[in-house]
């Protein structure tokens, strides 16, 4: 899990650089970046679903909606390629989603051990 979080945290500056310099990356590298950022959000969504009873409802719901929107939008961008309007803004949101993902896995409540009835 720690290597996964380190990897996700490294996507934060990469997305910030991509937002600042939208013309400095190629179409392929941009698709890879959006695709990878989309894939790493899936474990977050899965954990939000499996631990929904343990989490505080409102923040968990907001985070789930945000992550779902990011997954949908960035899947579309990955498929469509460069030329999306306000692409820099999407990179900022991706950086934000990576921050949220890292903070969630560091702070989420520990699930209770399963006990036999």
């Amino acid at each position, binding site marked *: *899990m*720690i290597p996964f979080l*380190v990897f996700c*945290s490294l996507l*934060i*500056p990469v997305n*910030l*650089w991509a937002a*600042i*310099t*939208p*013309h*400095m990356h*190629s*179409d392929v590298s941009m698709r890879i970046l959006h695709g990878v950022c989309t894939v790493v959000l899936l474990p977050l969504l899965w954990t939000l679903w499996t631990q929904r009873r343990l989490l505080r409802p409102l923040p968990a719901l907001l985070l789930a909606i945000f992550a779902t929107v990011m997954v949908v939008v960035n899947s579309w961008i990955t498929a469509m390629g*460069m030329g999306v309007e306000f692409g820099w803004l999407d990179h900022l949101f991706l950086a934000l989603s990576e921050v949220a993902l890292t903070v969630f*896995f*560091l702070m*989420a409540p*520990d*699930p209770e*051990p*399963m006990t036999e009835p």
Partner: protein
Amino acid sequence: MASRYRWRQQLLGSLQGQLQLATYLVVFLGFTGASSVGLLIGQRHLLANDQQLARQSIALCDKAIRGLQDDPARLEQELLFHSNANTSLWIEDNSGTLLRPRIHRSLSDAAIQTAMATNPGREPGLQRTIDIGNERLLTELVKQLPDGSHLWMAQRASSNLQALNNYLVLMIVVWGSCLAITLLSVSWVVRRVVQPLDQLNAASSQLTADTLATAKLQLGEGPIEVMQLSRTYNELLERLAQSWSQQRQFVCAVSHELRTPLTIVQGYLHHTIKRGDNLSPNQVQGLQTAEEESIRMRRLLDDLLDLSRGDSGRLAITKEPVRLADQLEQVADLARNTLNRPLLLELPEDRTARDVVAQADPARLRQVLLDLIENAEKYSAEDATIRLVLRQRDGASLIDVIDQGIGIPETELNKVFERFQRGSNAPEKTGSGLGLSVVKLLVEGMDGSIEVHSRLGEGSCFTVVLPT
């Protein structure tokens, strides 16, 4: 079940994890902030520089084409002269026709149309930045010429930004190296700090009352604070050992001093009950209660004295050949005198096994078995049978004391022979918690061992194993 977040406990709960995380955060935030701000400022400066260069070029071009509107050939020649690989100039006449020089790497028609579309009102001096494919262009409607046509300019900014890109790659390499070196350094330093603490933890976990006097923490080297901690720990051990020794001496002395007057009191009580002619039944009952309590207190003092002698290595236990069947018969007879329940003695059918002889102290062995029988009685129903069984296993003689009592919880079985340890399900006011620890002390003093098997609610089986 193991926690799914064990990694988080290791990261956030350990000193090493916390320091590594803090280091990573500092390096990460520092580099992310520095690189992002550096890129942003660098890019803005490059664009500003491009704009300045473009304006200088346009000023020269404007001067050169002045009065050439009627001579398209010369006009195109001048536009070509002031254009280059990065800067493109063109004129849009009133009908929308473009006059543009064709040179190598000149802008595509689509790029020119996009550039003009950013200024639909044809406002002179308005600059726009557009991204075409992988390129960033700085465009401007330079001026409106006297005949109503418009002079446009576009300049590529990407060539300078490539240098910025190279700078970013270099920064990433430097940052990654710094991060790796810093984390490795922190890991080394933290391990150096934590290693003595691990030693301290291991030494503390193995510490018992018996090893207090000899246990010393020997650390080779470490930070000053940790070395100071180890010295303080060793001083604490010395004080504890001294205190423990004094406590044992005190218990031994008190037990010994109290035993003699208590014996006298018990003797007088017994004598008074037997010989007292004019005692009322109530008085006899009161004296009998006093005698029972004095016997109980004397046995408690005996236990304390045995434990104290065992701690100081002065417990006298002789070892001689003992025919176990005889001992068990004696014990059964003695126990039946006080028990109000059946006690079954089960000896082997085989004559050889029945005549088995073990190395033991006969008096101490009887004490052990009587203690176990008394224990079985305490925790069994009133009419439940107690069994005393002699058997053989792997060349050793085993004596089982089996009851049908309340049993011992499985989690407490490993603590049952510890001093002052009583079962969590034991009734109130039953025993001091010393009996089984004395039993273990005496059995081990005879080079034997004791085992216990128990089921909650079904009963317990204590097995004394003696070498033959």
